[in-house]
């Protein structure tokens, strides 16, 4: 299973699996959702409904959570697939990126 060509979000997720050294695949369904499969896990990523304060909804083993950006999606996907990740995750506070 590989990412669909010309689909940047699928490409990012597929490459992310390589970065995390997780074997798996990514595909876009006919309904527009993204499926990430690795081992016994299946993760479904969809755009959130307009009435929710999220951009993405991530379903892991039937549990659905929102994410406000793709960075949040990456966190949720990795937390589901990489057991050592959540415990060791570093939170980074970035300085304002405009000159004072």
């Amino acid at each position, binding site marked *: 299973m590989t990412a669909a060509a010309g689909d940047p979000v699928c490409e*990012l997720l597929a490459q992310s699996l390589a970065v995390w050294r997780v074997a798996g695949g990514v595909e876009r369904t006919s309904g527009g959702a993204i499926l990430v499969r690795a081992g016994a896990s299946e993760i479904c990523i969809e755009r959130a409904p307009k009435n929710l304060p999220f951009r993405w909804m991530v379903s892991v083993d039937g549990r659905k959570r929102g994410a406000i950006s793709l*960075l949040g999606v990456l966190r949720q996907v990795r937390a589901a697939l990489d057991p050592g990740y959540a415990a060791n995750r570093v939170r980074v506070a970035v*300085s304002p*990126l405009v000159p004072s």
Partner: protein
Amino acid sequence: MIPVAILTGFLGSGKTTLLRHLLRQPEFSRTAVLINEFGEIGLDHELVETSHDSFIELATGCLCCKIRNDLAQTLDDMLRRRDRGELPPFDRVVIETSGLADPAPILQTLMTDLKIAGRLVLGGVITTVDAVNGSDTLDREEISVKQVALADRLVLTKSDLANGAQPELLDRLAGLNPGAPVLRAHHGRVDPRRVFDSDVYDPCAKSLDAGAWLAEEAAQEHSHDRHDADVTTYALVREQPIRAVALTLFLEALAEHCGADLLRLKGIVKVAECPDRPAVLHGVQHVFHAPAWLERWPSEDRRSRIVFITRGIPRRWVEALLDVLDAEVAETQADARKF
């Protein structure tokens, strides 16, 4: 701000010989030297003759692990003793690491420790490579690959002993670190101005020598894939400015998902909200220096250029990450304008 240079290189690569030569030069008369050896008893400080105003601090144990936490404290103590007049008023610090040290944690300490922030600034990484044994060492010792990959300058030592011009070794060094110039030392002698001629990390620098570390070769749209411990160097180049929020998310994702595999990142970026003042980025593993803002672009080239030195981080992932985050931020901002 006092620049701190890191002199590293594998065991026996000629660091102490080089340092001994440098400290005899008038330009180095006001240099504080911190020598770090790996072993029960340090000897290198006995081998380094200092000029009148230079002095040596010795720490035994490997800087990158055993005494890493003491590094900032040692430097802070040196500054306090300088302020009290107990030490000569040095205007440069050189840290000679042990041959087995990983330079990355040392870089991180210098970039982030609050005790020394505001007084010291990282002035560059100089790595010595033995022209005779360098190739074998790179084959055998992974840490030597990292020492080369992280350097701002490479000094080829013992070239007077090596037969020929060592083209294979030079090719390999260029593959591992295309942005670092290679200087040749003869009997430990090299022009000191070429070794320490810029303070590349100085966030206050008014005329940042961006061209020196964003070398043309590194900025090309192709990667220099080598198979030395999976170390790969490539550069992202973008004509279009990058939105500040997207850049923030991008750096956060790199820190979070690459960690120790992001050996080093150096970049000059055109930020959409402030395109006339480029942001200078430095990162080592999961630690990023606060961006420095230049008053103007250092050359006619106003493209964003970010150089990556990684261990096994695919270029395609980095490109996709930046593109997707920038597109998402653009979409979010467009949505916000509708309301």
